[in-house]
């Protein structure tokens, strides 16, 4: 048709199709996700650059300024030892967010490896791995997490130092107990993708198994994995805060958000702000990550959009 030939060059100029741009467009339609991206960016920039701007030390004990309500000198107030809460939240946020990110990476890497292995192999290997995933899914997560940390904390502390030891332990355990949903997702994707024509074509051209997985199947299975990984960051932040809140996470001299809340909980009547700031920080981080995950689902998993 004459009309279409005329229209096509101009259409190509304005709307060149690219999967990334298309995904970004769909992501932007989720308004709360875009707002959340901004909130999370502010939080991340705050904890990364914060120490360069806000130079008070986290362990600067000042009994003259005990339990002071928020003021210009201490915008978030001070705790029972006169330590500046803003400084403690900035430094704690680095750890809380780093734990979330690192634990997510552990969960995703383990999940992708297990899921890909199960999805590519038929029979007993697949059945065994999925049985293992089901078994891990029915473990009571928090009690087990507490148990492992209780039993292994001292050993790792002596090997890697108090900060490093607890960090490695918490990341490994949280990540190690959260790989199952990713593994199931990846396996399901692999089972359907490996029968697709383009994979068959690649196989017919002599592609090795590794190349099939790495170049053809895995990239197409990544969408849901990215969504699950995003939500895992939020879950890991909650898990770490819970541990610290129960007094079984990082040691007292490392003020993660959960730890500050743990210290604050006995002073609710005199210093409610002390608990409100770290709690809101955890809440904002988790909420914005969850919304971003929801937006990414719209963007990367178009089949599930109704």
């Amino acid at each position, binding site marked *: 048709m004459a009309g279409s030939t005329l229209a096509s060059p101009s259409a190509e100029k304005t709307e060149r199709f690219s999967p990334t741009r298309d995904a970004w467009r769909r992501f932007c339609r989720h308004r709360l996700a875009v707002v959340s991206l901004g909130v999370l960016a502010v939080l991340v920039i705050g904890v990364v650059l914060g120490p360069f701007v806000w130079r008070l030390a986290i362990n600067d004990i000042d009994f003259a300024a005990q339990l002071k309500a928020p003021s210009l000198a201490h915008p978030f107030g001070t705790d029972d030892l006169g330590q500046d809460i803003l400084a403690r939240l900035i430094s704690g946020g680095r750890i809380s967010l780093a734990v979330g990110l690192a634990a997510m990476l552990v969960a995703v890497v383990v999940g992708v490896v297990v899921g890909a292995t199960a999805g590519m192999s038929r029979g007993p290997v697949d059945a065994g791995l999925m049985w293992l995933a089901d*078994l891990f899914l029915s473990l009571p997560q928090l009690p087990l997490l507490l148990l492992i940390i209780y039993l*292994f904390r001292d050993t790792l502390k002596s090997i890697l130092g108090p900060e490093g030891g607890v960090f490695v332990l918490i990341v490994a355990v949280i990540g190690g107990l959260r790989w199952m949903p990713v593994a199931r997702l990846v396996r399901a994707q692999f089972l359907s993708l490996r029968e697709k024509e383009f994979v068959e074509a690649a196989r017919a051209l002599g592609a090795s198994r590794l190349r099939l997985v790495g170049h053809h199947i895995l990239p197409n299975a990544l969408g849901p994995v990215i969504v699950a990984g995003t939500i895992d960051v939020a879950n890991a932040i909650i898990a770490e805060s819970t541990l610290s*809140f129960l007094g079984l996470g990082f040691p007292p001299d490392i003020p993660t958000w959960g730890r500050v809340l743990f210290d604050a909980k006995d002073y609710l009547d005199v210093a409610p702000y002390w608990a409100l700031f770290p709690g809101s920080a955890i809440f904002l981080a988790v909420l914005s990550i969850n919304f971003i995950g929801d937006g990414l689902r719209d963007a990367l998993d178009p089949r599930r959009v109704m």
Partner: protein
Amino acid sequence: MSTDFLLRRIMIAIPSLLGISVVLFTVLALAPGDPFGELVTNPNVPAEVRLALRAKFGLDDPVHLRYIRWLWAMLQGDWGFSFVSRVNVDTLILQRLPTTISVIGASQLLAILIAVPVGVLAAAKPYSMFDQIANTFAFIGFSLPTFFTGLLLILVFSVNLNWLPIVYSTEIAGHGMAYVWNAVRQAIMPVAVLGLFQGASLVRYVRSSVLEVIKLDFVTTARSKGIGERKVLVLHVVRNALIPVVTLVALQMPIVFGGAIVTEQIFRVPGIGSLLISAMLANDTPVIMGVTFVFSCLVVFFNLLADVLYGWLDPRIALR
């Protein structure tokens, strides 16, 4: 539902219980330090007694023998002895289990009572104003960690308004109605914290489950027969949409137990969750192992219950 189906499900549950026990035992066996650490530091116990105890409990035997002996003792209810309170672990746990179960049960009920109506109404008019507000609140609900909601409730209702007691106590004042009222009053906050968190994540599942069912042909048929929209929704859609939700409630149990540990700790509810934390802070290993094992058994039990209920509600599953 046939007994055959029930038996098959139980046969599936046993290996997973065994698997969990292997995981627990491995963690314990790999852990550094001595389970009899308390005896080592206790100067009243001479070294030869300690060695004799080790031999008696077979701590120097190969791993698989120790595992079998440990499992056998656990199955017989011989769970050891609390170092701190000098009471058998099983008595200690049995004392506290009813409190935990009742708090968890009440909060699950609250979660379902919130999630089902809200989820169904949201799905009845997808993308309406109500749906969007419900969705936003659901996100806020499960992004608020239970320890923070707990503190917020204490701050508002105990510290500022002074309506509800902060600490949950086993000895409640009053008799008759006053007793019941006091018991309910102290349970409001723990149950609300757990129930709201759980309800928020359930809303989304109920909504998507209803949306799945609502587009099926039999719903269209019911509508075209002239049955009112409300009747179609309640009698045709919700009944079928709730079947997968039953499974979800049971599968979320591991998360619920995590939340229960936190709420029990905040409100000092004397359940097995707070027992676990105090045992950890006091290095009371037998209690820790016992409580973890009970939590695992409860999870497996709820999974089994979900399977059986699913088979009962949806006979197609039981036939497979």
